[in-house]
């Protein structure tokens, strides 16, 4: 296997159990569900920290309120959201992220505004709930980018979407979780070594991430640099 090859779910599970001394994958000291949960946590942790893997989804909506779970069930963080009127009109615009307080200043009666064919703004209502302003008239197509969670499944040939240069850290993370566990296997000193090793790997990955890979997505979050730059362009291409 070349270093550029990603591991499958089966590989992740094998190397995780191998690191803690049970390459057959079973023991009375842990359950497969525990290992799978730790691997899931490892993937979520790396994604939260690095955001190196994105997914794209499409939804057709006639609503002015969006719930993330209706868009997709694996959204860790919603990123850019693009709007297209649909039908024969294939044009597409990015919805600008704003807070409701921004809308208050922009148009005091914004929540009573009539629906329009071209919503311009996306604003947060609550965790996982977003509103569009003006509300959508008819139906519209939304294209959205997001940072996904992933849960390893029973399909052993599924390949992890994380970059191959992060794969070795699954072993140190599982070692840390395994030896931290209450019970006969607990070894806090060993867990601390594993944790330190994992932190070191994470620093390395952050260095790769920050030096050679894209800046984190321009968030669907108001008052960020993206919004400021869009309002006051600093330069043209």
């Amino acid at each position, binding site marked *: *296997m*070349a*270093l*550029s090859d990603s591991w499958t779910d089966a590989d992740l599970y094998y*190397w995780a159990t191998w690191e803690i001394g049970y390459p057959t994958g079973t023991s009375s000291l842990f359950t497969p569900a525990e290992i799978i949960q730790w691997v899931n946590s490892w993937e979520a942790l790396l994604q939260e920290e690095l*955001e*190196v*893997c*994105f997914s*794209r989804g499409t939804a057709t909506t006639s609503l002015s309120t969006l719930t993330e779970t209706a868009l997709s069930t694996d959204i860790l963080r919603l990123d*850019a959201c*693009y709007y297209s009127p649909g039908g024969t009109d*294939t*044009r*597409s*615009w*990015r919805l600008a992220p704003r807070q409701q307080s921004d809308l208050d200043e922009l148009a005091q009666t914004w929540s009573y505004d009539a629906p329009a064919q071209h919503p311009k703004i996306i604003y947060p209502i609550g965790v996982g709930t977003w509103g569009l302003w003006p509300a959508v008239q008819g139906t519209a197509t939304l*294209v959205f*980018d997001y940072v996904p969670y992933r849960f390893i499944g029973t399909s052993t040939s599924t390949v992890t*979407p994380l*970059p*191959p*240069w992060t794969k*070795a850290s699954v*072993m140190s993370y599982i070692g840390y979780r395994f030896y931290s566990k209450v019970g006969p296997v607990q070894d806090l000193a*060993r867990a601390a*070594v594993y944790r330190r*090793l994992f932190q070191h*790997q994470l620093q*390395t*990955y952050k*260095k*790769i991430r920050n*030096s*050679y*890979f*894209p*800046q984190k*997505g*321009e968030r669907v979050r108001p008052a960020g*640099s*993206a919004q400021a*730059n*869009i309002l006051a*362009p*600093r*330069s*043209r*291409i």
Partner: protein
Amino acid sequence: MLSAFAMLNSKLDTLAGQVFWDYTQYYIALNEGQLEFAARIPGIAQVTSTLTCSAGSELANLPLDLFIPQQLVTEEGHHVWPVDLVQLENEDAGWRSITGRPQFVTWYDWARVRVWPIPDTTYEYTLKGVPYPDEISTSTYQCPLGLEYQEALTSIAASRLLAFTRPDLAQQERAAGEEWLERFKRTLRKRGVWDTLRLRPGTGWSLAPGGTIPQGRRYR
């Protein structure tokens, strides 16, 4: 020069065979060290691959054998400049609706880039970049980058393997590995292949076409 495997075996003093570690652990530790080094000392090699920009798709899959993409070149030899998403938004809020021959590239995630304008037909551009290191999977493999690199690599790998049973020795090996790595970096600087272009906006390289050529750091 000893092979990487033999050098690691010597540092661990397990010449009699697989007493404390399975040899698989050797290879994992060595390869893990290689990936760490690849992140810390990029630009040691460059390979060429193909980036296919499919008609109607703003996202193009990066060739997975490239660790760090560096330069994207059109079929006619023009370099495609890296920009960021905000610059595209500034250029035209409806940028996702504009098609043509891609002239700009921006990142999407580690495995994909966006090209803009969105391709009106399929284009095949040349992508240059840093490859992944060779996987070490045999006991006879010698690191082509030389003795300093291999000394550093085997010390770091030994440090990884000794961490749980001999933390004092692991620390010693880590320090030795870091010292060898610094020596290797110094050699690279003398050879003039230290810094590398990167396909990422905001660097001196991507600012250059706009007329800004900041003085690069001498060392890092």
